[in-house]
């Protein structure tokens, strides 16, 4: 296991702090969150804040509950039969599990990018326009064109696809498909973007591009990213949360977690004693 270069990380965080990109305001807060699948408890009481404009990485061995926790943040667990969530999750102070809350609107505010690139069997244009159309964000075709263009630009894909917007999204390369999925997610103007191992199906070059993109997006969005790659966590995140068997073991500045973890379990994981 290669150790992460600590200088690289401190530079990133320092640079971002100097830019004033990071604030100390919590965008989302989880309080004593527990998740059950039937009788088994997958998450055992987690307290965690996601700050405004920060990138927070969730790491931990397989089955540690990091993806499950991520999915509680936009109520994607609702779609799973027999899944029950306890505790409180707030977005800008508002309880997202409040029965009177519109899940559709919540999901527009908290977007998601999945493990495998999953563009819809539609044209590149229609992939990006899908969300805005459902939410009625565009008044007329010209408006929609603008949303599609700006989303693709922000996802760093515009130059590559501007001449073939009517071609199917499934015809793009894996990395392009994933950036298309990111463009699709930002087209509905979310405030938080959840990413569930977004690079696990990509080659190193495509991964580098997506990581670059995450870095740029963090100026406008709060990003929570689940990753199996510790190098990736170190490269892209401001803070890192280490999960173990459904519990949050520690959360701290990425630099600190990777150089002087507070907890033995964290140290065991980052030094590769279990994975």
């Amino acid at each position, binding site marked *: 296991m290669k150790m992460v270069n600590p200088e690289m990380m401190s530079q990133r965080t320092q640079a971002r702090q100097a830019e004033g990109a990071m604030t100390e305001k919590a965008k989302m807060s989880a309080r004593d969150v527990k998740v059950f699948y039937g009788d088994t408890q997958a998450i055992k009481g987690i307290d965690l804040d996601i700050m405004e404009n920060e990138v927070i990485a969730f790491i931990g061995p397989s089955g540690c509950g990091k993806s499950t926790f991520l999915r509680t943040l936009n109520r994607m667990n609702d779609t799973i039969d027999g899944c029950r969530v306890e505790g409180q999750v707030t977005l800008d102070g508002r309880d997202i599990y409040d029965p009177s809350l519109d899940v559709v609107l919540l999901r527009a505010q908290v977007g998601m990018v999945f493990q495998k690139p999953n563009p819809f*069997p539609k044209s590149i244009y229609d992939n990006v326009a899908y969300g805005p159309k459902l939410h009625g964000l565009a008044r007329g075709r010209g408006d929609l064109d603008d949303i599609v263009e700006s989303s693709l630009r922000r996802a760093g894909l515009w130059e590559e696809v501007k001449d073939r917007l009517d071609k199917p999204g499934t015809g793009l390369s894996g990395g392009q498909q994933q950036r298309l999925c990111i463009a699709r997610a930002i087209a509905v103007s979310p405030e938080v973007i959840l990413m569930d191992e977004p690079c696990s199906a990509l080659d190193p070059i495509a991964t580098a591009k997506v990581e670059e993109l995450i870095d740029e997006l963090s100026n406008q969005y709060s990003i929570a990213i689940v990753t199996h790659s510790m190098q990736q966590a170190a490269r892209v995140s401001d803070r890192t949360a280490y999960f173990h068997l459904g519990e949050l073991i520690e959360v701290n500045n990425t630099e600190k977690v990777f150089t002087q973890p507070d907890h033995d379990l964290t140290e065991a994981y980052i030094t590769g004693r279990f994975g």
Partner: protein
Amino acid sequence: MTASQLFFTRHPVLPGFTLSFGLSVLFIGLVILLPLSALFLYTSDLGWQEYWSIVSNPRVVATYRITLAAAFWASLINAALGLLLAWVLVRYRFPGRRLMDSLVDLPFALPTAVAGITLSTLFASNGWLGQGFDWFGIKIAYAFPGIVIAMSFTSLPFVVRAVQPVLEDLGPEYEEAAHTLGATQGQAFRHVVLPHLRPALLTGTALAFIRSLGEFGAVIFIAGNLPFETEITSLMIFVRLQEYDYPAATAIASVVLLASLVLLFGVQWLQGRYLTRLRGG
């Protein structure tokens, strides 16, 4: 060297390209081309005029209409039922799933005559199910609905087996992605799942349709076989055979064959076009 040239120089796992290729061609020839050519040979004994008068005989034309209509409804039912079955088999885990999965193939394994007898017993006006429908004044066995039911029974596996692997590949994250963008369950299904399944669903339904056009065993027991009302084309062929009118039988058979071939190639073409479009061609 192009890829195809490379292919022929590569050492295959099965010994001898000449032998394995030759056997395949021989088999295809025996199974498909021999009966096909015999059929056309028989038909060629007839002059055009004779041929035309046989295949455009009003009673025969009525069988085309009935067969096409019944096959159409049967494949429509199969498209819906087959999609549902495939969905249940792929997306849910329940006791007896493996059994259900293997039962889907039963219509292929069961002699069609057995299916026909069973269905006609069930749906006859004094049968278990037929009684209920009879009470409402709906006649199923020995009427048009009986043909549709027999056809959909024997061709259901086509749709299920075509859709199932695609659905397995699809995974729930496509619907989830649609949900994250604000789609309701129904919208996610219509906008995302269905377009993914469309080529497979189309192929399966078309195969079911083609199979239904030629269905004989299951239908004749339940259809009642009244000329101009419930007589299907494959039965018409049989009737002509029983009259020892071989040229007429083969003439009608050639029409069925031609229709099936045209449909088969049509489906292949459509599917090929759809796939190249999806891959960005």
